[in-house]
């Protein structure tokens, strides 16, 4: 384990690793079948403090640094993706904007609830017309005497059907747009004019939901504005910087699990009178996978640690997210391949991990957008 990871975190990672093996793995098939996380499992996660790892201790969290957090997340991702998803939004994109920009009142109100897992968070940026180009969003927030009135629609929003609090990014000035015309808001579940639309039916990611979020003259009091008016785009981008690293961490965790399944199977499965691990074709698949995961892991540790030392990690987090998620997908494909027909069968779980890992190349910025941002930084004058 990386020597920069604190002793406390190592201890906790051991605890998480046992939790994954003893409690999560036995229920992962049933999560996949029912699309639900067992209540007892979520309760244990709350008792372990998993929902508030990144939230500062004065607000009921554990105040973990990003490096330690990423390695907890990596471990927790080795079971079903829904287990990772339910806690990672509270620790990441669903709370970071409040931690970074919230007023004392907003922090006191929301952060303890998010840290304990009593509240589930959601982050609503993407719209049908504004995906990769988030600045093209059209959800409007208009200033009135009573507060802000929101109109518009978001989609693909994780946790929306179960969320208690939404961080919503909306347009406050049509002319200025990303240059000071976008603002961030905190919208409570049950606010008048807030509605959850269709729940998307997805390729993978069973047990964690994406849905449409619809605003119809939804009134948000002045106290619901997050940060300064016009700072919403910057807030969203900063939130995603960190989010990218957690996506990378989870992808590496899934990749490592797949690789160990691949190694085990290659030693066990015999064809042509010997274990397939003795064929060079299989060896190269395993060797390439191990090498890529090692590289991704080192990028993750380096970038997270830079962040913890106050460096601007924009480009590094893009590179890490890009490489880790693409590598993990290649690992999934190879491990599925070396399982032959068994890899295609649900019983080995590999087809599920293959479907789940696929989403990582899309959310928190597609691979193309990461490359676009890396290149933009390289080419700027």
């Amino acid at each position, binding site marked *: 384990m990386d020597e920069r990871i604190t002793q406390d975190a190592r201890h906790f990672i051991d605890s998480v690793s046992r939790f994954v093996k003893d409690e999560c793995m036995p229920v992962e098939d049933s999560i996949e079948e029912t699309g639900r996380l067992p209540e007892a499992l979520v309760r244990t996660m709350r008792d372990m*403090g998993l929902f508030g790892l990144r939230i500062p201790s004065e607000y009921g969290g554990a105040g*973990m640094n990003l490096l330690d957090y990423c390695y907890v997340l990596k471990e927790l991702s080795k079971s079903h993706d829904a287990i990772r998803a339910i806690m990672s939004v509270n620790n990441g994109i669903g709370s970071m904007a409040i931690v970074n920009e919230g007023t004392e009142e907003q922090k006191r109100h929301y952060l303890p609830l998010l840290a304990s897992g009593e509240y589930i968070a959601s982050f609503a940026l993407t719209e049908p017309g504004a995906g990769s180009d988030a600045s093209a969003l059209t959800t409007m927030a208009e200033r009135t005497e009573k507060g802000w009135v929101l109109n518009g629609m978001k989609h693909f929003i994780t946790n929306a059907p179960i969320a208690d609090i939404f961080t919503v990014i909306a347009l406050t000035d049509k002319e200025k747009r990303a240059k000071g015309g976008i603002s961030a808001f905190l919208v409570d579940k049950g606010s008048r004019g807030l509605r959850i639309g269709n729940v998307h039916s997805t390729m993978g990611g069973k047990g964690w939901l994406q849905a449409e979020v619809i605003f119809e003259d939804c009134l948000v009091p002045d106290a619901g504005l997050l940060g300064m008016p016009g700072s919403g785009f910057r807030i969203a981008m900063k939130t995603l910087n960190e989010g990218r690293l957690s996506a990378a961490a989870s992808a590496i965790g899934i990749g490592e699990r797949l690789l160990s399944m691949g190694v085990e199977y290659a030693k066990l499965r015999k064809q042509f009178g010997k274990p397939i691990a003795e064929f060079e074709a299989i060896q190269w698949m395993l060797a390439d996978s191990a090498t890529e995961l090692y590289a991704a892991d080192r990028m993750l540790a380096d970038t997270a640690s830079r962040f913890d030392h106050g460096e601007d990690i924009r480009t590094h987090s893009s590179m890490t997210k890009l490489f880790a998620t693409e590598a993990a997908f290649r690992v999934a494909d190879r491990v599925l391949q070396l399982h032959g027909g068994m890899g295609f069968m649900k019983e080995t779980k590999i087809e599920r991990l293959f479907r789940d890992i696929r989403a990582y190349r899309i959310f928190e910025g597609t691979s193309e957008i990461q490359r676009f941002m890396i290149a933009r930084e390289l080419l700027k004058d």
Partner: protein
Amino acid sequence: MKILVTIKRVSDPEAKLKIRPDGTGIQTEGVKFVVNPFDEIAVEEALRIKEKHTGEVVVVSIGDKVVTEQIRAALAMGVDRGIFVNYTGSYDSYDVAGILAKVVEQEQPDIIILGKQAVDDDMGQAGFMLAEMLGYPQAAFASKVEISDDKKTAKVTREIDGGLETKEVGLPCIITADLRLNTPRYASLPNIMKAKQKPVKEVTVDALGAVVKPHVTIKKLTEPPKRKGGVKVESVQDLVGKLKNEAKVL
């Protein structure tokens, strides 16, 4: 009430162990060490008793400095404080019981819970010997523990060969924890952080007034003999024949 729990540092039961070439022990390089799983169950039970009846849970571990890692692990589960008996020489179960008896004399706990055995050497003797030395009642292999409301007795269900036996013992008493007593909790991050502030007292065997004089010494460790490959039998008759004539078990 005060509950004393003993914990031993053991190699991870899932680790693949190798014997050192000179046969004096196992190779410890790269092996992960954990709290003996039965002791972890003992800690959990103590915490549950404390949560129900209030009081204090203290853990004690014997060994060199590294065992404080396991003491910290117990503190992170919610134990109040630790006692680290610094001893680096060799010892046997009788010595362990002797050291623990001295700790009990100092601490005067109402209940002492041990794991039923340590998974490294599987001796399973310390609990019995400790009870004998102290003259305390004991209930070994517990699968259920209930403390009376007046905190004077414990009703303990034990796993015995034929089934279950329930007995009542007066406090103070010795209990050893079996596998099905409970499922230990996971250390939460806040508790791991709090554990650092909790006191761990270091004592020596001499200061306790214990005498270590092993009756048992390990001469040599060897790998179990390699199993010969099996054979496939053609029929049930074949199998019965082999069990009768070759294995001689029928």
